[in-house]
């Protein structure tokens, strides 16, 4: 620690700090544009010039390290003169078009020019103008306003890991651009809107929509991944105008994924449901709530009295809040059924009893981990903020291996990456386990017969070494394993590898599913799991918060089940053709931002949020709908006044929660067969209804790739396929015809076709065996 003095205030600071950091910690304000606490120091705007005792000229506070005895003056005559001069230069080429600039009112340049700018400009020459660039559907550019702080350039390089923007040209001709016009592809790109200190980079969907001072900020929690990023909703006239991050060092730091930032656009989609409806003589009729709710309970009770309660199933989206999940299961259990589940995209439930949830692990622990093995996860799409944290750890020296059904540029230093199909994935994990056996303290007896005889491959040895050499290794298991029909076998091997190498296993939850485990929205006793609920084609279904064919693992089976069911209720925020076709009652539910609730993140952190705007039309918050349904069903204990009451009940020590065992599942065999396997990844911007209805996200380059089947050259040659012709993918008697792209990142024996699209909805099940032919030959 060194002793310094800033504006006469004595401070003790860490000698590695710069003056601006010491001043920030002490709450002393120094003007700045290019400096940002999360980015490297560029020192190019010069706005932070301060006077330092014994220095012959003003020094930039952002790049001058503190030293013992240093005396700094941030608002002396010398400092202020220097700052005013810098401001004069910055304003020379700035258009001063604040009245038509979206940044107006929240602009760092505007704010500082109030303090340091002159009323009259001495610059009478011509200002330069810079052509605007089209960098995609999310970010609007007005490059004449740019002051060349390069925060956006540094963000791309240092945080997003993909340098797309740069400074081209020299001096007067310098511009920030992509040079070759293209849409930014980073999934964190929206953060440059927040970083830009002027109005050069602003939100495109928000353009000309509202002024900063007209909006109210309400804290909330982002619902689309398992992080629970802290956000702020900016509201005007009962409408969410935009979403920005709230700093939380433990979760999203200062960042937000584009999915969490732009999904709010779905709230105003024309597909939102706003009135309760019932089907009478095959015609949909708008009715009042009482009629719709009565009809719901009456219909369900009818099915129950005729066929028994076990003929009714309740399926709920994992994005639903803790309160909704709890009341959903409480209501349906009250009606007598245990067929309740939220694991809509899961197909393999044989290891259900194993509890992989973590109670002693925090998201920020990723920073301390020195080795990562990513298994079956496209982490950048699935959990962008977790990918960012892993990247930061990797840059600090942690090792990273990835084994998946396809390779993808992880935008971080990766030690090894491999793409294999499912049977090989099993064998690879078994090989890693085998390699670890040599040094294991205790041999896992149950496994010895299952593991292969062969010696582990070099790759397997390397991963085993990576894990056993690490002090604090973490394994992530993602959706590309969890959604497979062989997920249990793969997960059990991941558990074995984690156990043998003394590593941490993190099974990535989908959005709020940890809350659902806590709430008990899954079978407790003999109830059917999500897959069986559909496969057994029951008589009655209650669906909450999802689209039956886009958010489930076996779309055509769901389709058949719904068609045959005698009574179907959908509680949902969005229209769906399939729901219209098969449901009997549609209850419009309030969406994200319109309801209060609780989010339970990957590390079990409970975060509560309040509703920020009134529900659309006549829709109502999910927990209130369920409360009334409970009451109309004449069940006891549905007299909640607020959603807090529900949480209190969930947290009540009297409540017993069924906990799974930690050890537990050993597969019968590790030999799987596969000829050609479908990779049904849920693309980043197809993950739930709200995201799917955000137009801007659907226009990103990421989304445009969803319509293609992708296969590697070798497999294409084997089957006589080429990108000039469409291919027909068939499964049993179902066929879809799609354009083909050659993609050598896809593993042998696999064909990629995005899930949660209208095409995938025509296929039987995700990750299944398929045949592929050139169109016209079938």
């Amino acid at each position: 620690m060194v002793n310094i003095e800033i504006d006469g205030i004595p401070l003790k600071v860490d000698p590695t700090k710069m003056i601006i950091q010491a001043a920030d910690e002490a709450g002393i304000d120094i003007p700045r544009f290019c400096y940002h606490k999360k980015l490297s120091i560029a020192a190019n705007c010069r706005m932070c010039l301060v006077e330092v005792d014994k220095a012959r000229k003003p020094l930039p506070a952002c790049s001058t390290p503190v030293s013992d005895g240093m005396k700094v003056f941030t608002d002396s005559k010398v400092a202020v003169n220097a700052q005013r001069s810098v401001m004069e230069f910055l304003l020379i080429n700035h258009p001063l078009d604040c009245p038509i600039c979206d940044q107006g009112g929240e602009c760092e340049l505007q704010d500082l020019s109030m303090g340091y700018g002159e009323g009259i400009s001495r610059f009478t020459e011509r200002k330069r103008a810079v052509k605007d660039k089209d960098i995609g559907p999310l970010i609007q550019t007005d490059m004449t306003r740019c002051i060349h702080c390069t925060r956006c350039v540094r963000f791309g390089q240092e945080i997003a890991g993909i340098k797309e923007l740069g400074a081209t040209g020299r001096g007067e001709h310098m511009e920030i651009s992509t040079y070759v016009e293209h849409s930014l592809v980073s999934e964190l790109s929206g953060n440059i809107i927040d970083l830009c200190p002027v109005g050069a980079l602003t939100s495109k969907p928000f353009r000309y929509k509202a002024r900063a001072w007209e909006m109210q900020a309400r804290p909330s929690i982002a619902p689309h991944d398992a992080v629970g990023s802290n956000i702020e909703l900016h509201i005007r006239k009962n409408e969410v105008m935009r979403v920005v991050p709230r700093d939380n060092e433990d979760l999203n730091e200062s960042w937000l994924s584009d999915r969490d930032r732009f999904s709010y656009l779905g709230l105003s989609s024309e597909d939102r449901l706003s009135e309760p409806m019932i089907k009478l003589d095959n015609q949909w009729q708008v009715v009042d709530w009482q009629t719709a709710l009565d009809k719901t309970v009456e219909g369900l009770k009818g099915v129950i009295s005729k066929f028994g309660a076990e003929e009714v199933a309740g399926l709920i989206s994992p994005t639903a809040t803790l309160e909704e999940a709890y009341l959903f299961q409480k209501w349906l259990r009250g009606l007598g059924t245990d067929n309740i589940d939220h694991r809509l995209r899961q197909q393999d439930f044989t290891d259900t009893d194993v509890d992989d949830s973590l109670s002693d692990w925090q998201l920020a622990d990723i920073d301390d981990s020195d080795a990562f093995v990513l298994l079956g996860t496209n982490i950048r799409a699935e959990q962008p903020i977790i990918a960012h944290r892993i990247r930061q750890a990797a840059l600090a020296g942690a090792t990273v291996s990835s084994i998946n059904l396809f390779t993808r540029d992880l935008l971080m230093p990766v030690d090894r990456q491999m793409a294999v199909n499912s049977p090989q994935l099993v064998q690879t994990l078994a090989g890693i386990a085998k390699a670890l056996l040599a040094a294991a303290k205790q041999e896992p007896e149950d496994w010895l017969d299952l593991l292969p005889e062969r010696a582990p491959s070099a790759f397997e040895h390397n991963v085993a070494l990576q894990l056993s050499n690490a002090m604090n290794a973490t394994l992530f298991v993602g959706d590309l394993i969890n959604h497979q029909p062989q997920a249990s076998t793969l997960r059990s091997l991941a558990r074995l590898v984690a156990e043998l190498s003394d590593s941490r296993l993190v099974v990535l939850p989908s959005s709020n599913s940890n809350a659902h485990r806590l709430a008990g929205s899954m079978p407790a006793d003999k109830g059917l799991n999500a897959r069986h609920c559909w496969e057994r084609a029951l008589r009655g279904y209650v669906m909450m918060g999802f689209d039956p064919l886009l958010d489930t693992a076996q779309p055509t089976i769901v389709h058949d089940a719904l068609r045959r069911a005698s009574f179907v209720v959908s509680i949902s925020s969005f229209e769906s053709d399939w729901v219209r076709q098969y449901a009997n009652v549609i209850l419009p539910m309030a969406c994200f931002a319109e309801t209060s609730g609780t989010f339970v993140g990957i590390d079990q952190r409970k975060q509560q949020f309040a509703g920020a705007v009134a529900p659309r039309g006549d829709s109502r918050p999910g927990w209130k709908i369920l409360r009334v349904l409970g009451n109309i069903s004449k069940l006891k204990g549905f007299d909640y006044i607020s959603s807090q009451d529900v949480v209190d009940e969930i947290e009540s020590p009297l409540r017993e929660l069924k906990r799974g065992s930690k050890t537990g599942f050993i597969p019968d065999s590790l030999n799987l067969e596969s000829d050609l396997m479908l990779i049904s990844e849920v693309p980043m911007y197809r993950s739930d209804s709200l995201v799917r209805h955000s137009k801007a996200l659907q226009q990103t380059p990421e989304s445009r790739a969803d319509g293609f089947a992708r296969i590697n050259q070798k497999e294409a040659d084997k089957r006589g396929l080429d990108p000039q012709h469409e291919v027909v993918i068939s499964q049993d008697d179902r066929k879809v015809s799609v354009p083909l792209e050659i993609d050598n990142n896809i593993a042998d024996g696999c064909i990629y076709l995005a899930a949660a699209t209208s095409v995938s909805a025509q296929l039987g099940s995700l990750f299944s065996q398929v045949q592929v032919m050139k169109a016209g030959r079938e």
Partner: protein
Amino acid sequence: MTQMLLTGPKEELFSDALREQMDTWIAKYPEGQAQSAVIPCLHILQDANGGWLSRGIMDALADYLDIPAISVYEVATFYTMFELEPVGKHKISVCTNISCMLCGSEKIMNHLQQKLNIKPGETTQDGQFTLKEVECLGACVGAPMMLLDRDYHEYLTPEKIDNILDGLAS
């Protein structure tokens, strides 16, 4: 002009001879710091491509050095000695910075424009000459000056320019 391969595996990009030249530069920097060699590599490629850099060449160089394409564009657009459009057989770069300006670079520039019948930044119709206005080339002591291809010519007068250019044509 050398034939260059601009797509495909890194080991086969450009040509054997060009790769060999570039590799001697890359080898001067620590492992993983190939970005440092971007300027000499651009010079080598520009010379091999008749004096200018196409986008394809810059993209291929980015792949070869394993750096983002924008990092190559940044450098190529910054320095006036890199050409992003085809140029004439001979490139005339006239310095118009302070020393040359005080010693009459304006007259030099006017003379060249008249003689070649082009404006700065343009190429003569016969493809022989490209005229450019550039920043200081560090030869203030001999102002006014110009750079013709790779040679400095100092203490310029209109007559001297006529001699130099006529000498080239013969």
